[in-house]
């Protein structure tokens, strides 16, 4: 019988790292404050003590060095899991992410490949200081050679992280800060993987599809609840893997409902919602009863905490968009 425990997402991530370190001696964890401090969110808590400073490594404060050396570590036979303390600081490592990690397989025509996981907390809702709450997934989803994933539950967090660590290609693993401790879920203790590239239908429905990922999945679910009490049946899809997108699952849902609302925190213009909307209108054009509609952050920088509740998509805005497409 499977041993399970009721874990928060951060505990599930910690358990996945622990298991990976225990199972595969090539796995190592590196980043700022991941050692004795256990990570600023405690994702790596206890790992330094258990696996030592060679495998759980505090690096100097230099993101390009973290990712760039992790590329070398991966090429040299290790399975590095690098942490970027907050996603907003990944810009410092942008070349190493985009031109190096993501393209070495291509540039070497398959001789080399880079099994690297870069973990980063992201998103709003927790009143961080400036630059700590950015959602930058769209930038990375545009980069060939990289995979981008984000879980919305403890179960998926563990299973997707293990799948990412086993993946032969670089994976950007985005962790929604506001879900770290938002709830608990039964999580098996053993190794299991949630395959990358597969969206998850969170609940089925007939009238409209709510498409969300990461921190916005609970918002979409709450909106669906609220819509249900008004007699509207909403299907909720958690995208999970942002690159490559599981367009098949998304298209199926929208073909069925004829209406879609996409929800993400990132700025609207050029956000991932644009790609999803563009692809869905290509694939489900004749089924669409209304334009595919986006509920997103506004086209401003992520605001200071005092204004973030107004800025972030919330249940009201999602409901309003659903009603808009339903009465189009």
């Amino acid at each position, binding site marked *: 019988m499977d041993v399970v425990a009721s874990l928060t997402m951060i505990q599930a991530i910690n358990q996945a790292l622990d298991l990976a370190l225990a199972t595969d001696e090539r796995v190592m964890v590196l980043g700022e404050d991941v050692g004795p401090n256990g990570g600023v969110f405690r994702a790596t808590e206890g790992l330094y003590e258990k696996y030592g400073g060679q495998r759980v490594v505090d690096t100097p404060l230099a993101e390009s060095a973290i990712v760039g050396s992790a590329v070398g570590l991966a090429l040299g036979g290790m399975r590095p899991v690098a942490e970027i303390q907050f996603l907003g600081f990944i810009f410092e490592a942008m070349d190493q992410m985009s031109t190096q990690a993501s393209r070495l397989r291509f540039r070497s025509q398959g001789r080399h490949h880079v099994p690297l996981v870069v973990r980063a907390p992201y998103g709003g809702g927790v009143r961080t*200081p400036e630059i700590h709450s950015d959602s930058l997934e769209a930038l990375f989803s545009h980069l060939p050679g990289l995979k981008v994933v984000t879980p919305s539950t403890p179960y998926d967090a563990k299973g997707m992280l293990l799948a990412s660590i086993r993946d032969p290609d670089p994976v950007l693993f985005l962790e929604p800060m506001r879900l770290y401790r938002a709830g608990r879920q039964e999580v098996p203790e053993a190794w299991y993987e949630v395959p990358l590239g597969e969206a998850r239908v969170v609940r089925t429905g007939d009238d409209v599809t709510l498409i969300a990922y990461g921190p916005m999945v609970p918002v979409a679910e709450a909106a669906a609840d609220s819509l249900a009490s008004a007699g509207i049946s909403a299907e909720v899809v958690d995208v999970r893997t942002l690159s490559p997108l599981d367009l098949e699952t998304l298209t199926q849902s929208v073909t069925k409902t004829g209406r879609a609302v996409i929800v993400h925190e990132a700025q609207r213009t050029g956000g991932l919602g644009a790609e999803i909307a563009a692809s869905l209108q290509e694939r489900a054009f004749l089924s669409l009863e209304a334009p595919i509609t986006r509920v997103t952050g*506004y086209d401003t920088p992520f605001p200071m905490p005092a*204004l973030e509740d107004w800025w972030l998509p919330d249940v009201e805005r999602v409901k309003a968009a659903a009603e808009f497409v339903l009465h189009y």
Partner: protein
Amino acid sequence: MNPLEEFPLIQVLNEEGQLVGDRSQISDDQLTEFLRWFTVLRTLDQRAWNLQRQGRIGTYPPFSGQEATQVGVAAALSPEDWLCGSYRDWAALIYRGVPLFYPLLSSMGHPAAGYLPDAVQALPVQVVIAAQILHAVGLAWAAKLQGQARVAVSLFGDGATSQGDFHEALNLASVMSAPTVFVCQNNRWAISVPIERQMHSQTVAQRAVAYNIEGLRVDGNDILAVYQTMKRVVERVRAGQGPVLVEAVTYRLGAHTTADDPTRYRPRDLDERLRQGEPLARLRRYLLAHGIVSDEEVAQMEEEAKALVDEAVRQAEAFPPSPPESVFDHVYGELTPQLREQRAEMARRVSSGEPGGGRRG
């Protein structure tokens, strides 16, 4: 090369508060003034910590222990000089004229905390480690191009020296001979990472060798050393003799921020030892020992500080909230069509009293 010999620690007032160097550039009055400032700043910093614990403000990065460096640096500048610092450098900003309630406002998540008073030549505090060092180089370079006798100072931490931007900034400044003063507040930890894991070299100052610029190491808890050294350095740099790197060796007495627990990574005995040299106690001891201030004056300073900080808390808490729609107003010089639409949408939500987005930070 022995860096500890090449870059000896400049100290004027030792850890016991005894004079071990020359203090001819600084009067008793000015020292007393510094103590007054330290008292106010320390009081503010501790109050901020408590306010965060009470949930009245958000994350706050305390500067206690680093007052001598920050005040010493700021005091050595002319009003027209630029200061580009980080999230921890409110003490320097306040000394230069930013009202006491700004750091509180900032930790309350108020956008307005980014607009420092026009009279204060400083950029908003920087969150991205080392990014501001390049801005200082550009500001210094602009001053040089415009024939202004202005310098730009950048404050940053020991962790910041590992970033590429640190290197690029020092290299560029050295090549352009941009009048920049680089002040590293080496408080020995970058969050939980001790300096020995940040760098393999014994000093930050020796990095100056890489750029063929002057490097200095100063006791950052000694206001006399910092102030007098900075005065000399700023003069040199202002005179066009090229950029300088100053390592101020200091110690953060508290946590990295209110979200941090330093007992997880700082050995207790080490902490005890490093606290000894802290700048306020050191200066007070010296001033008391030499009768420059009396116990009564010290007590009065503390009273005054408390009153000032009370007033700052009041100001911060009474500060009018920014209208939600103001988030659109400083993205570009003019609203784009997209922002105009989005602003109107948000304004509708706000005025309709929509329940969802209503909670303020």
